[in-house]
């Protein structure tokens, strides 16, 4: 229990660190921070809205600590200001609407890549040095070095522009009304195929190589040899003895890569014009919508911290050493 509480406390500090960054950045820029942040807004925002924005970002009268407290208060009440690009919608609403799509992409692609990657990685480690291993392991590492931009652009061109097998963009066919109908679900699925496959392809190599290398190290341990000497079946040795112990490092690598995957998802969404956080952010960047861009950092930090906590929980359940302190 103490382990989980310590982790939670750490996540709180990390979140405040991200918020501090948002607070400090406009104040470190040369010139008047308010002018920089709202340069775009001045043209289109009425004075009341501007005053509200200023209050949100702690631009109140008073010394820095007072400003900082005012800012922290608005962050923890999830008042992220008003979007300039999507005026008059508040940033929190714009992001909440988009976050579902991103979580769907990131979540399902992670599960798929984790399943396929670890299965292939176990096989590669078991028959290490064989034909399968010597092809798939370097290949997956090379795959990992190819950015999501490249994979998604190539996939878009091949399957949506040339072959026309799959739709080139958006999350569902525009003719359909979003609702709980079978046609709409089908449309959502076909629209998700390309972005999902892109994200799976980008992630799979990391899982494969991590579990392969961990497992190869483990297979040299005495307890594996003991299992073999006892006459256990190869399958049992491979899964219950080897793979089971190789999963733990995979979990901690998951916690670290989740931030990268979120980044990959942002790019993939932009290429496929998918209505998630990435696309919203892209429009925010073009319009220099600073409240939106800053809110994005907070919400994505929050998502990554939540994913880390899930990994901690899984670790806690799988690793008895963490429970006996």
């Amino acid at each position, binding site marked *: 229990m103490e382990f989980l509480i310590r982790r939670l406390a750490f996540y709180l500090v990390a979140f405040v660190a991200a918020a501090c960054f948002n607070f400090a950045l*406009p104040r470190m820029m040369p010139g008047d921070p308010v002018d920089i942040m709202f340069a775009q807004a001045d043209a289109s925002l009425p004075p009341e809205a501007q005053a509200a924005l200023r209050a949100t970002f702690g631009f109140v009268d008073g010394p820095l600590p007072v400003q900082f407290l005012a800012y922290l208060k608005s962050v923890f009440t999830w008042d992220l200001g008003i979007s300039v690009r999507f005026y008059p919608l508040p940033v929190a609403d714009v992001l909440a609407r988009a976050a579902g799509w991103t979580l769907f992409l990131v979540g399902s692609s992670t599960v798929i890549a984790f399943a396929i990657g670890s299965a292939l990685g176990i096989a590669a480690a078991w028959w290490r040095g*064989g034909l399968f291993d010597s092809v798939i392991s370097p290949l997956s*590492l090379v795959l990992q070095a190819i950015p999501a931009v490249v994979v998604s652009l190539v996939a878009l061109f091949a399957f949506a522009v040339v072959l026309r097998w799959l739709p080139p963009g958006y999350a569902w066919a525009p003719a359909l009304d979003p609702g709980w109908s079978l046609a709409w679900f089908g449309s959502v699925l076909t629209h998700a195929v390309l972005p999902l496959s892109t994200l799976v392809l980008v992630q799979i190599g990391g899982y494969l190589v991590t579990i392969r290398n961990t497992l190869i190290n483990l297979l040299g341990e005495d307890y594996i040899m003991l299992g073999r000497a006892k006459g256990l079946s190869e399958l049992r040795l491979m899964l219950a003895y080897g793979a089971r112990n190789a999963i733990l490092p995979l979990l901690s690598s998951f916690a670290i890569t989740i931030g990268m995957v979120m980044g990959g998802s942002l790019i993939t969404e932009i290429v496929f014009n998918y209505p998630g956080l990435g696309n919203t952010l892209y429009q925010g960047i073009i319009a220099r919508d600073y409240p939106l861009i800053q809110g994005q950092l907070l919400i994505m930090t929050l998502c990554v911290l939540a994913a880390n906590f899930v990994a901690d929980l899984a670790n806690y359940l799988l690793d008895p050493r963490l429970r006996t302190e």
Partner: protein
Amino acid sequence: MNTVLLTLVRNPKAAFGLGVVVVFIVLAIAAPLLTAYEPTARVGGPHQPPSWEHWLGTTRIGRDVWAQLVYGARSSLLIGFGTGFLIAALGVAVGITAGYLGGWVDEGLTFLTNVVLVIPNLPLLLVLAAFLGQAGPWAIALIIGLTSWAWGARVIRAQTLALRRREFIQAAELLGEPRWRVIAVELLPNLISIVGINFIGSVIYTVITQATLEFLGLGDPLAVSWGTMLYNAQTSSALIVGAWWEVFAPCAAVAVFGGALALINFAIDEIANPRLRTVPRAPRPWAGKPIDTKAGAEA
């Protein structure tokens, strides 16, 4: 150092990866000799497919794609290696300091590392780049470097901790060697494979991230690099109008360069960690008999 290089070249994956990287470096250096065109000059009609005059076709505003590719390699490679070095150096500095000194220095640095590690990088970079406006390549390099050192620091700290209590380090300390010497002469050589992997991984990461930021329009649109090529292709909807060459040229460059570096990393890992070595070692000149591959695989 020579033996390190020699071991690398003997590994077929590393040799292939190194070869590709060298080709890219030569392309970048010899760019003016390899093309008659200026990368930013209008030298042909819009969106012409690859032909004898324009090996990789032209962009929408009639620039030569091959010229952009080889000149763009300069920016992408220079930023990639420069920032990779910065990331690796910061990782080594923080990791060794934390692991070697221990105590409250370690507590503080480890905490900082973990916080930096858990804040997602790309959104952080986007916020920074957006505030900087149209960031030049070196501004991008600097912000990538300053936000991406944490992973390396963590790995290097762990390895330093493992080495810290080994006899040869303790012996050097008991002999009264100065701290910098223990670190530079005793510790660092034993970390070389991890530092190498970290450096190459950081180069890959930088090339990817630079291309991504520029693709999003956060770079300097006048600079010539693989990322701005992608950005220009995207804004001129090159894919939709079927001008695949404008998109595929920078895509292929990023992918092949990154892939080659990844192969080198795979090989370093194999060489440094004997258990991962699934290929037989290169035959020694004094050993006259052929190598038993079966035995090599089981070792």
